[in-house]
């Protein structure tokens, strides 16, 4: 009987687990790492980006995004949408072509690969004969023209990829008709460019590398005209009226050629080296677009004087008298122009530039050509991300204030709506407002709207103003000087150079109810900030805290403290610092927490921890945790791990540099790349091989960094006796030690003048000495204590203070529950001893059932060093589920992981991209969107124009006919509502 019953319970629990937990990687936020190709479909209004790792990403209106991955691990070199269709073709580095389509499925579109093709030449031909260098998707939508390295043009019928051999344009056919006086006739080289005549789809221009261009009639299968350019060809553009061809060349020149029936006119009409006199770099792409009235727009990339500005990444825009060289901070991959009008043939409205580290869109219809803020693809890594912090369910008040502060910072952006508007976002409105805060190396904190699919920048806080830095004030002055030639204008926000690495933000804690924020950095600085809607000029007083507490014999070998500005500083509206603590020694802050109700901030470094009263602006407690024999802790931030990371970064940079210098379409391209890859692999292998053996030794109190404070926690609980609860501070160290302090707070009316005191109450030394990574106090019902002010704002049930509280200590190796106030071990869950993985990240999350609305339970979400995510039940610390999430070699990905309060998480998959995942069945933020095939050219492809403001990124357009979608939306909305009841709802079963 008993056995049956237990079995029944187990299966019941299993069913419940299925209702509560489910693992999904939902969406990638940020900017794709190493983009390598750009495509755009004017009819679909979709943008496509291909990457070096073989990913293809499509973006339309905010929230509309698709992602596909080629099976081949090869870089995408070209992306072409088939005109007026939902298909697109990609060309990879391995010379394979792939056909993708957006297929409707259950009312949503999904990106699918529907075909692949590799050109096969005649038997025995060298591979260069079929190596594709240029692709033209013909407007008929049925043909692909493929120019190759061997100089041939192959014609392929799509979507079936059927070679039309009889229509191929071989090099011999062309060479035979080349005028005898043409210098380069012996070797025309590869096909560099293929362009279709905008007014006659039967005519294409074939541009050969050597410079010759041939206008070919596809119907008659013969050359109509030869354009004998003699400079190495870079790109070709056929003007819209079909009467001119523009060619750009490797010497920084461009030429305009008249297209006419008679050979007499084939003299070059106009030739120019725009930044001439001295040798210039190549103009890699040139575009000319007409305007309704007035002269056309001319846009080209490159062409800078080699010696003086050869390292600039520029796109030049010339219109009327305006001539601007847009100066980007990273290499230009490609660009295109969006045009007005229903058929996208009107005036140019926006220039879209894909550079290696960001996407920049420039409004060409507003004076001064301002930048339009991108609602997606925002470079997270404008300065390197050093930490992140997620806050769920932001109160509307704070949300609006943050947005208002952010809008004041964005006045230089164009007011125009986002011009890429393809597809419909069918995702339901996010159930709550979530903030993701990222700390950066340059001392800034970026606030992102993480509620939905688009990670949208809201506000940026800079802490550098509090300190004197080495920044050169002339840095920003030397641009835009009058009369400078070329007329540079800096655009883009990617700026990887930090003025002072000590400014780097390491820890962030925001109280969403009070608007108090604390951030801590690399040089032991802790700032407390308050949200202020007005600009204010104030002095920030620094309080230096000696964490060594008179321990003798230590000398700090790391960096010095930051130099604080003594004079008042003007802070713009937003978060303004009002208190500053500087740790001595100025080691990186390793733990930070804020209690806005008690107005206390606790911070820790590798030397100890402190408690700071930010109302009275004095320190309440300083505790040195440094082991007297630990000299390593005085070495500064150059720990071994860091240096490995650094050397990795350097080798990546080296490779990137060598890749950047590779010219496109050159034979040794792949060889060089492979060489670079091999070098990287060798370096990696060497790094891994160096410590071939591992020492097996029990941890000892003498190990280095045992005193490093890993976690700090405030709790109102029973520390000394079971009848009186008191405020308390808990600290956990790397050496497996937990310190508990009883705090005495003066009554509210005397809070400003009576001192806050802290008394040591308990000290727990874990026998296994593993680093303590988390401390949680569970109330009488076994639920985690609510956040400060949560109860006061009626957003959480007050904790149960009747039953006895429990202390949960999470070390890297195990989860252990102790009773309170008398600390005795109650139960535990071993992790490392059983499977060899260690806890890297841990958070408390609330999971609600997908089936039963009113059921939910809290659990611990855990990420291990093996990259697995686990859910551990509370308060019984039983393993619930386990999913592989991150590759275990991806150390920085694992280190960057941050959990939300509702079972979602973010981690960096590259320096510029967050992957979002969800462990919850109810909380899923993923793109749900529909792209419809455009009605054929001539009619409107867009049903409505979208007044798409920056602030209204989340829009739900529900297709009322699609009951299924509606139902799903309904379901997730309901699920979300229950979750609003929040963390501390005690369930009978738990």
């Amino acid at each position, binding site marked *: 009987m008993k056995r049956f019953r237990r079995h029944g319970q187990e299966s019941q629990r299993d069913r419940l687990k299925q209702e509560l937990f489910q693992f999904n990687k939902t969406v990638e936020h940020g900017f794709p790492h190493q983009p390598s190709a750009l495509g755009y479909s004017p009819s679909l209004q979709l943008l496509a980006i291909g990457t070096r790792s073989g990913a293809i990403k499509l973006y339309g209106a905010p929230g509309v995004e698709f992602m596909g991955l080629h099976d081949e691990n090869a870089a995408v070199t070209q992306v072409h949408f088939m005109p007026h269709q939902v298909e697109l073709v990609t060309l990879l580095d391995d010379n394979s072509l792939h056909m993708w389509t957006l297929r409707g499925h259950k009312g949503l579109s999904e990106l699918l690969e529907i075909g692949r093709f590799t050109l096969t030449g005649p038997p025995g031909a060298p591979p260069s004969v079929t190596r594709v260098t240029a692709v033209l998707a013909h407007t008929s939508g049925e043909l692909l023209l493929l120019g190759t390295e061997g100089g041939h043009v192959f014609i392929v019928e799509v979507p079936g990829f059927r070679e039309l051999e009889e229509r191929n344009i071989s090099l011999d056919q062309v060479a035979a008709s080349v005028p005898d006086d043409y210098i380069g006739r012996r070797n025309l080289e590869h096909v560099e460019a293929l362009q279709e005549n905008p007014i006659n789809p039967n005519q294409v221009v074939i541009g050969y590398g050597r410079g010759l261009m041939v206008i070919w009639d596809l119907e008659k299968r013969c050359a109509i005209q030869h354009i004998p350019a003699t400079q190495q060809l870079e790109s070709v553009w056929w003007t819209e009226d079909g009467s001119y061809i523009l060619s750009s060349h490797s010497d920084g020149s461009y030429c305009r050629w008249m297209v006419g029936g008679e050979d007499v006119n084939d003299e070059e009409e106009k030739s120019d080296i725009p930044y001439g006199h001295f040798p210039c770099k190549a103009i890699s792409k040139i575009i000319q677009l007409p305007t309704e009235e007035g002269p056309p727009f001319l846009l080209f990339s490159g062409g800078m004087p080699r010696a003086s500005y050869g390292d600039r990444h520029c796109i030049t825009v010339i219109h009327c008298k305006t001539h601007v060289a847009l100066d980007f901070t990273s290499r230009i991959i490609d660009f295109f122009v969006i045009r007005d009008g229903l058929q996208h043939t009107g005036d140019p409205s926006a220039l879209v530039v894909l550079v290696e580290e960001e996407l920049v869109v420039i409004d060409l219809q507003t004076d001064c050509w301002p930048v339009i803020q991108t609602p997606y693809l925002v470079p997270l890594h404008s300065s390197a991300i050093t930490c992140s912090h997620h806050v769920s369910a932001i109160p509307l008040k704070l949300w609006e204030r943050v947005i208002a502060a952010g809008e004041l910072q964005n006045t230089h952006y164009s007011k125009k709506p986002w011009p890429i508007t393809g597809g419909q976002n069918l995702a339901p409105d996010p159930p709550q407002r979530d903030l993701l805060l990222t700390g950066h190396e340059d001392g800034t904190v970026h606030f992102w709207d993480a509620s939905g699919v688009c990670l949208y920048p809201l506000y940026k806080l800079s802490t550098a103003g509090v300190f004197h830095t080495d920044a050169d004030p002339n840095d920003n002055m030397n641009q835009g000087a009058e009369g400078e030639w070329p007329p540079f204008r800096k655009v883009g926000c990617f700026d990887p150079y930090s003025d002072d690495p000590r400014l780097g933000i390491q820890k962030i804690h925001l109280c969403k109810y009070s608007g108090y924020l604390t951030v801590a950095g690399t040089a032991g600085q802790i700032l407390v900030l308050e949200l202020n809607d007005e600009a204010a000029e104030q002095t920030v007083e620094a309080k230096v805290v000696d964490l060594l507490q008179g321990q003798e014999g230590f000398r700090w070998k790391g960096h010095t403290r930051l130099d604080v500005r003594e004079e008042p500083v003007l802070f713009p509206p937003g978060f303004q610092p009002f208190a500053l603590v500087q740790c001595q020694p100025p080691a990186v802050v390793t733990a930070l927490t804020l209690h806005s109700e008690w107005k206390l901030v606790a911070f820790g470094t590798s030397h100890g921890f402190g408690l700071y009263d930010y109302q009275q602006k004095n320190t309440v407690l300083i505790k040195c945790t440094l082991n007297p024999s630990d000299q390593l802790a005085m070495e500064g931030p150059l720990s071994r791990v860091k240096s490995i990371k650094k050397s990795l970064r350097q080798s990546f940079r080296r490779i990137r540099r060598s890749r950047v210098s590779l010219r496109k379409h050159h034979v040794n391209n792949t060889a060089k790349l492979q060489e670079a890859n091999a070098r990287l692999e060798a370096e990696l292998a060497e790094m891994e091989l160096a410590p071939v053996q591992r020492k097996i030794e029990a941890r000892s109190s003498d190990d280095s960094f045992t005193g490093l404070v890993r976690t700090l926690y405030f709790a109102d609980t029973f520390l000394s006796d079971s009848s009186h609860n008191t405020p308390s501070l808990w600290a956990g160290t790397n050496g497996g030690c937990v310190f508990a302090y009883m705090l005495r707070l003066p009554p509210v009316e005397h809070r400003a003048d009576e001192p806050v005191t802290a008394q040591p109450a308990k000290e727990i030394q874990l026998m296994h000495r*593993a680093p303590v990574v988390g401390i949680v106090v569970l109330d009488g019902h076994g639920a985690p204590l609510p956040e400060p002010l949560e109860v006061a704002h009626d957003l959480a049930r007050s904790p149960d203070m009747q039953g006895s509280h429990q202390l949960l200590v999470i070390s890297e190796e195990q989860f252990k529950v102790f009773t309170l106030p008398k600390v005795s*071990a109650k139960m535990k869950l071993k992790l*490392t001893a*059983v499977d060899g993985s260690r806890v890297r990240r841990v958070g408390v999350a609330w999971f609600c059932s997908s089936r039963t609305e009113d059921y939910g339970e809290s659990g611990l979400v855990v990420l291990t*060093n093996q990259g697995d995510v686990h859910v551990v039940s509370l308060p019984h610390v039983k393993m619930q589920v386990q999913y592989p999430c991150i590759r275990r070699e991806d150390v920085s990905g694992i280190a960057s992981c941050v959990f939300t309060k509702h079972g979602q998480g973010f981690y960096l998959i590259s320096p510029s991209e967050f992957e979002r995942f969800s462990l919850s069945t109810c909380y899923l933020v993923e793109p749900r969107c529909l792209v419809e095939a455009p009605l054929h050219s001539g009619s409107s492809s867009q049903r409505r124009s979208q007044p798409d403001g920056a602030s209204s990124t989340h829009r739900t357009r529900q297709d009322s006919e699609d009951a299924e979608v509606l139902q799903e939306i309904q379901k997730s909305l309901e699920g979300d509502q229950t979750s609003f009841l929040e963390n501390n709802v005690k369930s009978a079963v738990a």
Partner: protein
Amino acid sequence: MNKNHRVQSSRSLSAVEVKSKFGAEFRRFSLDRSKPGRFDEFYGLLQHVHRIPNVELLVGYADVHGDLLPINNDDNYHKAISTASPLLRLFLQRKEEADYTAFGTDSLTRKKNTVLSAVLLRPDTNRKKPPVIISLPRDFRPVSSIIDVDILPETHRRVRLYKHGQEKPLGFYIRDGSSVRVTAQGLEKLPGIFISRMVPGGLAESTGLLAVNDEVLEVNGIEVAGKSLDQVTDMMIANSHNLIITVKPANQRNNVVRSGGGGAASGSSGRSSDSGASYYGYSSQAAAASMPTHIIQNFPVDELESDDEDLVIEAGGEAEPIRRAPSNYSMPSLPRYEPHLNLRTATTSVSASALSINANGTLPASGSSGSLSNTNATSTTSSPDRAMERRSLEEDGTVITL
């Protein structure tokens, strides 16, 4: 000295003449050979006759060969009585001043005089170097043991290392490697974890149970197959207070040969570890068939709660080890495999010492192992209760570092 007592009296058959020396004083009395009583009674008697009721004593006697041997439990007491011929000569020492080196066992190579002269507190200044100090059997405690011999394949060895919070490091390194296995698909090269280095003077080395190139198969009952070197490292460190590793020794010569096994051929094939993994195939058919494909543990992992003694310090109070909350669990029971500590008759036939002794210092790896096992055999088998009692005390001991 001896010749004085050569006279055999008529009483000698039933009574044992005892001459007990403490310091400079002698006491003489007799005991009934047939009813010697228990050791503690005898111990009380000695304190009584010497009128030193509160002095902790070390009791030694000269055996027939003239060796000085200890009397500290019922067994060796009875042995002493039964072999006394007829005089039993006792030498008492204060425990705190006891000269352990005097307890010689290697009588054949030494002159009786030197042994006894040492006992008679005549320090021999000519001694070149202090010999290895070995504590008395009752102070012995296990630092390592071979366990589960009965259920493991002969080619495997399960070793338990007791850290006990002592200062001595575990002292070994592990590395990645590959081993060749015989599988259904033929020979297969599989990644494995191997011991790569021993720290001189470390626990691992001093036990002699682990060696370089031994393949690690399990850590505390969990197979390491499929785990990375770092994972196995972390598992070992997490279990470092009571580490049980199952290895396939590189040197298979010293394997335990079970009498019933029928695999006489196995074990005698010394091969290098990396290539020598084909032992499954090497042993006889019967043995191979009976061998379980995965290794059974006969100890439940969760009984190993030796790391459960976290230390808590209340404000202003004394440090105390944390006890389990009584509501949930009972006190940790002694591990079930305790009996394995004792030498089994089956295992004594092999030269590998199945139990090595904490040497309180450096124990030369070669040397007196043969005679050591002799002593151990008597002492450990005779006083299992005390040894267990002792260990349970030790497991509660916590290193306090504040």
